């Protein structure tokens, strides 16, 4: 489904813009400029208002980014469980820094606050799927699932 169809599906839902953007990101991994301009038309608000919303929420990206979005939890429970080492391992393995995407467009690396899987820290998510008790060693295997 393209962004136009998605926006169309949500246009009659009051406040449905955020729902539509979640659905668009599931497919595009970010919010393309065309989709934002189209959303302004569909929901009958100024483009500036759409940016107002998209830039507020940390899960929305208005910049293109890698297809598989890796987010590493930085909150205190993950912090003391060694989240920093996991960040270092992922940066090393992918050859990019936090906030960047790999040049083949496969991965984006981001930090996040608690994702609510704190029973086994540290935690990362890939496209929303949680991986618990991650170590620098297991990160390699996890990435292989997406290569």
């Amino acid at each position: 489904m393209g962004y136009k169809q998605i926006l169309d599906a949500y246009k009659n839902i009051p406040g449905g813009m955020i729902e539509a953007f979640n659905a668009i990101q599931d497919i595009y991994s970010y919010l393309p400029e065309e989709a934002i301009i189209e959303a302004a038309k569909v929901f009958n608000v100024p483009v500036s208002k759409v940016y107002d919303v998209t830039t507020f929420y940390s899960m929305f990206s208005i910049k293109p980014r890698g297809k598989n979005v890796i987010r590493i939890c930085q909150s205190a429970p993950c912090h003391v469980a060694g989240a920093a080492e996991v960040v270092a391992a992922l940066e090393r393995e992918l050859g990019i820094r936090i906030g960047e995407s790999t040049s083949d467009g496969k991965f984006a690396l981001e930090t996040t606050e608690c994702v609510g899987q704190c029973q086994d820290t540290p935690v990362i998510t890939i496209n929303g799927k949680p991986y618990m008790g991650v170590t620098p060693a297991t990160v390699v295997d996890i990435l292989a699932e997406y290569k």
Partner: protein
Amino acid sequence: MAEEMRVVLRNYGKINPLKITDYLSVGGYEALKKARTMTRKAVIEEIIQSKLRGRGGAGFNTGQKWAFAHKTQDDQKYVICNADEGEPGTYKDRMLMENDPHAIFEGMAICGYAIGANKGYVYCRGEYPHLITILKTAIYQAKQHGILGDFDIEVRTGAGAFVCGEETALLESIEGHRGEPRIRPPFPTQKGLWQKPTVVNNVETLANIPVIIDKGAAHFAAIGAPTYPGTKILTLTGDVNNRTFFEIPTNTTIREVIFEFGGGIPGDKKFKAVQIGGASGAFIAANSLDTQISFDAMSAINSTLGSGAVYVLDETRDIIDVTTRIARFFEHESCGKCAPCREGTARLHELMWKLNSGRGSAKDITLLKKLGRVMSITCLCGLGQAAPTAILTTIERFSDDYEAKLM
């Protein structure tokens, strides 16, 4: 030995959450049927008598909140389930929704009947995509069975903003805007979603409702601490042997939580501190371990129960480093609407970073105390008001650790 008591987790592991017939076979939706034979006022009175107080952190009397919404006259009212669960170290609402979604819908429908609302929303954080599917499937099944009657439930998904757990920011988000808190009053029970009277309740609060209607207010009020009765789900993280969740009566002590349920500190190390209630919570020292976890007992030691996250640190942990990390959380999550929070959280983090890297002086600590006090009074919402809590309580209770890092 203190024992677990599963009230809200009554069906945990016993039913398939994706089969409504499982829920029905354990007496599910009977409380809704019963409530609908009672007068609206009688339902609200039952909840008031049970003394149930909100499990989302603020501890407001649930029946009282419903009574306000009931009293406000309008042609349209709403019930909202707050499933934004963002306090670091908390995952109780996820457990509830994963395992027993209908218990929450039943609570919502009872509230809807009581206040006169025919529409409910579950606002679920964007970090729980798998839950969206479970919730939508369960709602579909309830509708198929005609169980909810004229009460409709819709799921809305957040997109990564801690502040959207604050009830008025949540309303803004459902309306499709930036999740910035509103100025209160008016409270949501007067002017809530789309300016209509709205009850916002936490997932765990709602899961208690069917039990109260089913077994009666007196039964519930007799569990745990008299002024904050019932149970609480706690999630244990950090330096504790059993890093898992427990549901316990609210008169259980912190010591029992950590050393009995939690199995103590790993590796024969000594306990140093515990932060209860997530990033917004106070750090508590060993001398307060015999405090009960109930809302009021925690307030009495200038601490909070909050979301029920229990984050334990052993003697080897650097509490200044951890507190710096927590300050970073608030800087990141501040929505920027009010100046004391927008500026204050950045300055708190800056000062903590300076102290943590050994470049701070006693003057910085004085400044932190002053800024923290100002923020706790002047910030628009609970996010900014609670942002200095970890800092202020560690300065007060772990001053030696600060001393040791001074320049």
